[in-house]
């Protein structure tokens, strides 16, 4: 590994391209931790938002009116306000209010995760709900006549179909979520953008770090898009869509 690091130092000495994130051990750990924070934020928020989406879609199909209305307004509120405002609301509004209750355990990272998950979750509820509704009643009736229980019908028939229908929209949303994690910068979550800004103010290598950042996000989002498209293709219902 040392050879690689030395090569980057040589690169700096000869060309002036100052990639401290490779040859300087301190910056290397800093950038790596920022990168992992972005990955961690993305993965946790993706999982949580999918869970929120499934639960919300379930509630929207319940026969009680009040929970349905609550979920409806949750969706409207989170779909139609800027995520930056939501982030500020959670961190400066709720976070400050609940400080006495939660103590210092709930950090800005936690608030970023909560806020971003609810943001993406609001879209996911809609996506899953419309996916479930697109499964025809006759299919449910057919399942019932074959002796499937309500739970079995959902797990074995409705969900697999609804998931395939929802997947393209879900992918759009998740890709969007990964890009939105940059906003956590605004509440000082040490993710990739934040760490990079620390590095470039210490090392004064703004242009180089900017390019590193741009390429890093391009690769990160590119990988996600690629995986999701492969998955979409793999499980798509033949002769459907497109």
């Amino acid at each position, binding site marked *: 590994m040392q050879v690689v690091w030395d090569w980057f130092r040589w690169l700096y000495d000869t060309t002036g391209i100052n990639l401290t994130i490779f040859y300087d051990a301190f910056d290397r750990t800093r950038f790596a931790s920022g990168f992992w924070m972005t990955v961690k934020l993305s993965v946790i928020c993706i999982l949580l938002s999918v869970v929120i989406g499934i639960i919300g879609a379930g509630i929207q199909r319940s026969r009680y009116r009040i929970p349905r209305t609550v979920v409806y*307004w949750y969706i*409207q*509120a989170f*779909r*139609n*306000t*800027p995520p*930056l*405002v939501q982030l*500020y609301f959670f961190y*400066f*509004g709720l976070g400050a209010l609940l400080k006495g209750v939660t103590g210092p355990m709930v950090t800005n990272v936690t608030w970023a995760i909560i806020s971003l998950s609810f943001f993406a979750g609001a879209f996911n509820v809609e996506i899953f709900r*419309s*996916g479930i*509704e*697109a*499964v*025809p009643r*006759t*299919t449910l009736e057919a399942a019932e006549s074959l002796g499937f229980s309500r739970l079995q019908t959902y797990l074995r028939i409705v969900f697999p*179909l609804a998931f395939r*229908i*929802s997947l*393209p*929209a879900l*992918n*759009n949303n998740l890709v*969007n979520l990964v*890009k*939105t*994690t*940059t*906003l956590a*910068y*605004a509440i000082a979550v040490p993710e990739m*953008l934040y760490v990079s*800004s620390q590095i*470039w103010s210490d090392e004064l290598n*703004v*242009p180089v770090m*900017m390019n590193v*950042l*741009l390429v890093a*996000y*391009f690769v990160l*989002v*590119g990988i996600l*898009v690629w995986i999701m498209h492969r998955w979409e293709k793999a499980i798509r*219902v*033949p*002769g*459907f*869509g*497109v």
Partner: protein
Amino acid sequence: MKRESVLPVLLPDASRLVQTALRERRDGWRVRLRASHGGALLAVFVTGCAIAQAQVQAGNPSILETIWKWTPLLARGFVFNLAISFMAMGIGSIAGLFLGYAQISLLSPVRKTSWFVTHFFRNAPWLVLLFYCMFLIPFEVTLFGTKIPIPDWTKATLGLALPVMANVSEILRGAVQSIPTTQWEAASSLAFNRRQTMWMIILPQCIKRMLPPWMNLYAILTMSTVLASIVGVNEMMTLTQRALSAENRPGLLLSFYSYVLLWFFVYCYPIARWTVHLEARYAVKQ
């Protein structure tokens, strides 16, 4: 070969969902604003004002007076947001049309390069592009011996124009692709060459298809101009923060921020409605 449906159990609804998702992937997420959203926002604003009013100490001006006092300053900030959005949209659209046209070129290198550029800027988060322009463009350039200063907001405009460019490029490519192949075939049977087909048959039909997603993109862009507050441009959000710290009174937060949101809602709502209207009008009957 057209694939036969193996699983003819799904309703047309399901097919439409997938198609909507694929369209949104190309044109960007759809801004869906309803009048009830404005009502809810107004309710939040009124609640915020009521809470703040209850906390006003004797001798201090009422909350509405305070908001009224700051309104001219905030309005100036809002004009700035609009100026940024207009210019970013203009620059981004023109650049995007060229890039999109390159994406449907017959020359493979041109097509591949422009595809890469488009997706590069589409995959990069807006905030990162904004930072990129804010820090990399110098604060002044020397042109023929005269120093031309580049103010912060110009850089922010360019930073926002980049993602707009990539999105417009993709919208154009999508629109051209959505024109049925029969149109091309009919044109070539009438001895139109490629350029003539493009300019006289395909592109005129594309304009109608591009208009709704283009306006939608504008609504998204307008809402994104507040991102410029993070990099310190004196737009509405920054000025709100300044006003709040100048007032230094508890409880103003909710009323002020909901006030700002209301301004944006009032501006974006007609655009969103009009987009929906145009889309319905231009919808191709199948």
